[in-house]
């Protein structure tokens, strides 16, 4: 006979699977957000209205060698950002699939959450171009979504452990 899980024990199983899925999706989402933020930065610099100099507020009188060093530093920072996102994302996916037991990645996830939330007020700086309000709103939405996915991932990881203990 076909069976569809129901009842107390199976209900726990349902909830466990739900939180497991949340952690996995959270992990994938973090990786995608990381990749997108890098693509967006590069596209804005190459094809947008402002150059890298304008974005960083560098005095045009500074020599080209200084710009070169700055570009190298930017690339390193972008790479580190990507590694940070990838570490959290891959760890979350492995944890959800039962391939990893350590939850240390949640520390880095919490740190990323704090950094993201703290950066949101910066979008509403009065010195920003008022014509770019629509892009600011969507950027805020992106950061809020990323914060939500981090929070969801952290909460779901703890719930997974709790339910696993209840199930014995």
């Amino acid at each position, binding site marked *: 006979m076909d069976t*569809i899980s129901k009842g107390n024990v199976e209900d726990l199983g349902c909830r466990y699977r*739900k939180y497991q899925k949340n952690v996995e999706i959270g992990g994938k989402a973090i990786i995608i957000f990381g990749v997108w933020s890098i693509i967006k930065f590069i596209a804005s610099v190459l094809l947008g209205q402002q150059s890298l100099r304008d974005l960083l507020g560098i005095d045009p009188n500074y020599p080209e060698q200084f710009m070169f060093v700055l570009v190298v530093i930017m690339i390193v920072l972008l790479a580190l950002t990507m590694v940070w996102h990838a570490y959290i994302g891959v760890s979350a996916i492995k944890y959800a699939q039962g391939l990893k037991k350590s939850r240390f990645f949640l520390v880095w996830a919490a740190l990323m959450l704090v950094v993201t939330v703290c950066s949101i007020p910066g979008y509403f700086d009065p010195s920003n171009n008022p014509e770019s309000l629509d892009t600011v709103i969507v950027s805020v939405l992106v950061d809020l979504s990323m914060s939500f996915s981090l929070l969801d991932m952290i909460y779901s990881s703890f719930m997974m452990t709790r339910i696993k203990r209840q199930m014995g």
Partner: protein
Amino acid sequence: MQEDFHYYATYCAAYLAGYSHEESLEIAYSAQFVDLCSRTFLSKIGAPLNAATTQLQLEMMDARTDIIGLQDITRIWAAFHFLPQDLYAQKPRRSKRYMQKYRLICGPNGDLLAKTVENARGKSLQHVGIAMHVLADTWAHRYFAGTPSLVINNTEHDFVELLDVDGEQVERPVKFRHSPTAADDLENGIYTNSLFQGNENSIMNLGHGRAGHFPDYSFAKYRYMPAWGDYQEIEKDNPADYEKAFAQMVYAMKFLRGELEPGASSAGVENICSGRGAEVRGAAGEGERIGSYSCIQGARCVFFRTGKYDEEVLDKYGARIREILTKRQLIASDDWKRFGEELSGHTVEDFDIEKYQEQYVNATKDGKDKTFIGKFIRGAISQKGMVTEEIHKSGNMHAGFSKLKRVRALG
């Protein structure tokens, strides 16, 4: 389901229901033909294209997924392969858009099944064959919908096969690959399924593509998580379902042959038909729908009851049927064929799609309806129209409109 069940098993069921060898062959042929009667085939023989009961891989690749295309796809697949179980299902806190797709989920013993069997009553053997195909598929394809839908037909990648090893149930994770030409590897648990497509209306999200051929293997027992199930897992027991499908086919064909006793309500009172063909409910306000009945005013009503199976057949042949169903093989045609030949004492010829083509092609314009394929076409259009109409009546536009055109029955 595959040819083993739609052709050979249907032959066995038809013979056990009391049809002759020749009649059983016609019914079985029609049942299998539902899986092959595509627009390409109909175009080749000059038959009306709206009688298509299936779509080939090629046709599906070309199928549009705009409103018209989706309605066309749904009409074919919901009417013949994924008959909806409950067009009025309720689920809390769901949008109307979601519910319209949810209500198309296939399952056995629904109201539409009763109407499908009733629709075949008094009609040709070809129509009976079509009804048997639809009935059998409600068991195999349950939990999937005959409309492209990611939110209904998607499954999670955690698929587990439940194997019987020395009397003990063992779980083995299924490995899926996306290679339509490669055969499934039963020994190593490597199966083909359709690629994940994030588009809601992608043709890859039609039916049980994401579960591969599992629903069509009679031996398969497996566990998976459907997209619509709120994280519940389903354990599908194909041998048990196929056994029920077989027994129900026998019961349905006995009903169609007029062999069943006049139906009575649970209070023991015979139902006298008022001629209005209304649905019958259980007595004493039970409210349980037990079947629709046919309109023969003043006569005793005989109605098709869903949820009924021919227990006699199961008592006599159950062990043999279970042996065939649980044997681990890609297709069980040989076993069913042997069983059928033992039952009838006649040779069950292999299915040949070209058997009746010449008859149809060479017939005159007026004579086409009297040919085998002509009768099949009438049955197919009738079934498709009935299901489309019912889906539309339920407020669901996924199958579009249908228009009833009454014609005199052929003499």
